[in-house]
């Protein structure tokens, strides 16, 4: 429980500071820290494969894509004044209301208590599940990834001279 509390506090603090900062590079780097915290939670819960997949996909790949996007879309001059969105108070009210609702529901629900032994579900069992009963879904996911990445390339490449501002 102490390990869980430490992981949760670290992850939440990194995410909160990341989303409050104005410098996007610092935000991206702190969000990488919070993704590492989530991977640590997966390790704590006994899902090793998910933890390593989280590190590979989020800490390795998505963070690089985010950093590239930040650098490509960075304005040539620093903005003079921070842009106020005008939604700060309603946004925090809505987020706080959702948090209160979820926490109330979690704390008042009759959930199974107790700390069971770590389930014996390793990489071998996961591979058998993925290639056995879920093989069709795995193929569909591969097709989805291919189509999504082709679409991303088409979107980011644009249509040539039509796009001149």
């Amino acid at each position, binding site marked *: 429980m102490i390990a869980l509390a430490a992981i949760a506090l670290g992850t939440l603090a990194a995410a909160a500071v990341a989303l409050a900062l104005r410098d996007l590079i610092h935000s991206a780097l702190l969000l990488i820290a919070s993704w590492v915290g989530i991977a640590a939670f997966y390790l704590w819960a006994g899902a090793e494969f998910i933890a390593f997949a989280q590190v590979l*996909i989020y800490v390795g790949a998505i963070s690089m894509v985010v950093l590239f996007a930040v650098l490509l879309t960075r304005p040539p001059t620093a903005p003079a004044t921070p842009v106020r969105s005008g939604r700060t108070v309603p946004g925090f009210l809505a987020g706080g209301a959702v948090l209160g609702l*979820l926490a109330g529901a979690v*704390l008042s629900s009759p959930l199974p208590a107790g700390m*069971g032994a770590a389930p014996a579900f390793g990489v071998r069992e996961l591979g058998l599940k993925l290639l056995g009963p879920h093989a069709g879904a795995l193929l569909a996911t591969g097709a989805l990834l291919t189509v*999504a990445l082709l679409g991303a390339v088409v979107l980011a490449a644009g249509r040539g001279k039509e796009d001149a501002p």
Partner: protein
Amino acid sequence: MSPLQACLLFSSALFSLGLIAVLVRSNAILVLLGVELMLNAANLNFIAFWRYGPAPAEGHGVVFVVFALAVAAAEAAVGLALVIALHRHQRNVRLGDARRLHG
């Protein structure tokens, strides 16, 4: 407080943080990162219910998270490509300025 409840509170807090980022921030990249945080919170719930649920040996939660991670990768790629297209059209990534609907 049982461990399952602690995990669920953790993921609820993460989800709310992502929701606040989506609602408050006006930078398209940060809004996308807020969506990613909410997705991660959902994955945390799957793992928590798999760990403390009735049939952990079946591994349904883990399998679901594997597919959710794959879809999250596709979503991040398409979202950041949209951000780059937005930047090419209007020279910044502020969502308040994105008012034109025609391509």
